[in-house]
């Protein structure tokens, strides 16, 4: 197990951790659909050629093959881009993997818009929603290289299907070393009393930067919470932070609908309704550009999070009072 102290891509952590799993466990097999260099599963393929199956550009076939392998006692890791893993092969995952409750790990790289130049056809911003809505599926989105390494190793311990989302660009260090565990999947990285910033994946380090800016520019103490397990979301941990701050912003490289925002709002709406603003993709597709330019274009930045936080903070004193236009008005 080798942690990284400099920026690294979460997909690289997946590739390295998968080799470690292969060394430790005979029953680990891997499949890819002609993207193994990009997803990094090629490292496993080089180390264990007999246990690696490149199916070519045939993602539906790959997922159903993973079902067959798992039903016969193997632990398959099926990787490709997030768009093809979830969009093209949805029905295959649904019937063959999730419905059967088989221990297949769907390891999707290039999630979100930060893959950049390939544009809308490749920028998957609905995958978390698709996998969240699927019964029996766990959804894991690690924040950096070190957490992605842990998420990959831990996935072996689970007998259930999992969806793991990795990204293309190198991501700044959030965890100094490979953490011991993902814990509840809701991890307070920085404590604060004024507002909660729930972030996932590539937005976590940006949320930490946003918290710095809020402190230095506005004197606001923001709590930064990394949600690495979006489903099932650990509601107690979410509520604990909301109870402390009474207002929140969510941040994700994904559609707001169906993603982290919905997951957090769902918990809050039922048990502790407070204003929760969202940073994420609206009702639109991605575009070509460098990864950073795309993030900038859609406001998926530290500044974007901080700006939303300032708006949410304006609402906090208003909604903490009785309704303005309630039955007692006039």
């Amino acid at each position, binding site marked *: 197990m080798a942690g990284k102290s400099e920026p690294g891509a979460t997909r690289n952590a997946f590739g390295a951790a998968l080799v470690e799993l292969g060394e430790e466990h005979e029953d680990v*097999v891997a499949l890819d659909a002609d993207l193994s260099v990009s997803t990094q599963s090629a490292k496993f393929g080089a180390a264990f050629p007999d246990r690696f199956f490149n199916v070519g550009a045939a993602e*539906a076939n790959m997922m*159903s*093959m993973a*079902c067959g*392998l798992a039903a*016969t*006692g193997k632990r398959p890791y099926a990787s490709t881009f997030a768009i093809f893993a979830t969009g093209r092969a949805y029905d295959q995952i649904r*019937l063959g993997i999730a419905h*059967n409750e088989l221990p297949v790990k769907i390891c999707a790289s290039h999630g979100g818009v930060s893959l950049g130049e390939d544009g809308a056809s490749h920028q998957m911003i609905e995958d978390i929603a698709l996998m969240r809505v699927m019964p029996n599926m766990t959804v894991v989105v690690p924040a950096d290289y070190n957490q992605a390494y842990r998420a990959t190793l831990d996935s072996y311990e689970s007998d259930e299907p999992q969806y793991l989302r990795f990204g293309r660009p190198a991501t700044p260090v959030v965890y100094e070393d490979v953490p011991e565990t993902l814990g509840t999947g809701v991890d307070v990285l920085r404590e604060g009393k004024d507002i909660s910033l729930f972030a996932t994946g590539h937005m976590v380090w940006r949320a930490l930067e946003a918290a710095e800016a809020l402190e230095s520019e506005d004197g606001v103490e923001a709590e930064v919470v990394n949600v690495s397990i979006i489903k099932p979301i650990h509601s107690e941990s979410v509520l604990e932070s909301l109870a402390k701050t009474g207002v929140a912003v969510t941040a994700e490289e994904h559609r707001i609908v169906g993603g982290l925002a919905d997951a957090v709002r769902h918990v809050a709406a039922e048990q502790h309704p407070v204003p929760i603003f969202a940073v994420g993709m609206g009702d639109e597709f991605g575009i070509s550009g460098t990864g950073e330019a795309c993030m900038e274009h859609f406001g998926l930045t530290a500044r974007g999070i901080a700006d939303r936080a300032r708006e949410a903070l304006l609402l906090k004193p208003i909604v903490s009072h009785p309704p303005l236009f309630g039955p007692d008005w006039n």
Partner: protein
Amino acid sequence: MSHLRSVPDSRPPSKEEARRVGKASIAELERWATVHRLACVRMLAVAKSGHLDSSLSAADIVSALYNRVLRHDPEDPSWHERDRFVLCKGHAAPIQYAALAHHGYFPNEDLQGLRKIGAPLQGHPDMNKTAGVEVSTGSLGQGLSMCVGIALALRLDGLENTAHIFGVMSDGDCQEGQTWEAATAAVHFGLTNVTAIVDYNHLQTDGTTEQVMDIGDVRAKFEAFGWDSIEIDGHDMEAIVEALERSRTLDRPAAIVCQTKKGRGVSFMEGRFGFHGKPPSPEQAIEALNELEARLEEQTKALQGAST
């Protein structure tokens, strides 16, 4: 080219008594097919839901597999060296349930619960609810890919020369593009223990396959993909058994395209459009049962006559 390996014994090695009984004869397999058909009609008449004609067209294939060709052990359904049966055409679940119940995977009474709330026999096969079901199916086109995955796993376990996978497919499976992804992969990975059996009955939900989406010469298609591919009469028991046993001796994946009639064995349904997914009315069920019971009596008498 063919017959590169001997055909393994169809019984688990530990079951001495079963070995003494020996292999079922062609006439016995034909009779079991009638028994399974009767079970299907009864199941559907009670369930008032399901795909009867699709089950009947595959009855002879399923009888040959479960009563002679498959190496399986109902007392130990998870025996790792067993052959795998995958009903790619999951909507024909009743015919698989009939065979599984016959072999004691679950009590016969369970057949009465088909498609009923809380009962183990789901509308389409469910591996977590029904003993003997290898993988859940019901979404056309996925089954052959699952067979490929199972075959690769068995190869890693060193069982490719003993454990064989038999997938029973439909016309609809051949219309799904994924089937041809799987057909490509099976050859690419050099699988020798997969047999795809196509129950080519030419009828689908909206009409004949020729009207809806003509899949043409399926045998030639599999051959073009690099499979050993033959076409037989899917109701000729001798041809079915020979083709199945031959298929497990080959050094390539094998396709057996079976020309069949939907609703086979029930005259008013046989080869006729309009029964897909429609359960028989009580009157139709009685008519079908009368016809099948008469055939069963003939087949039983003939077998008794032959043994005396």
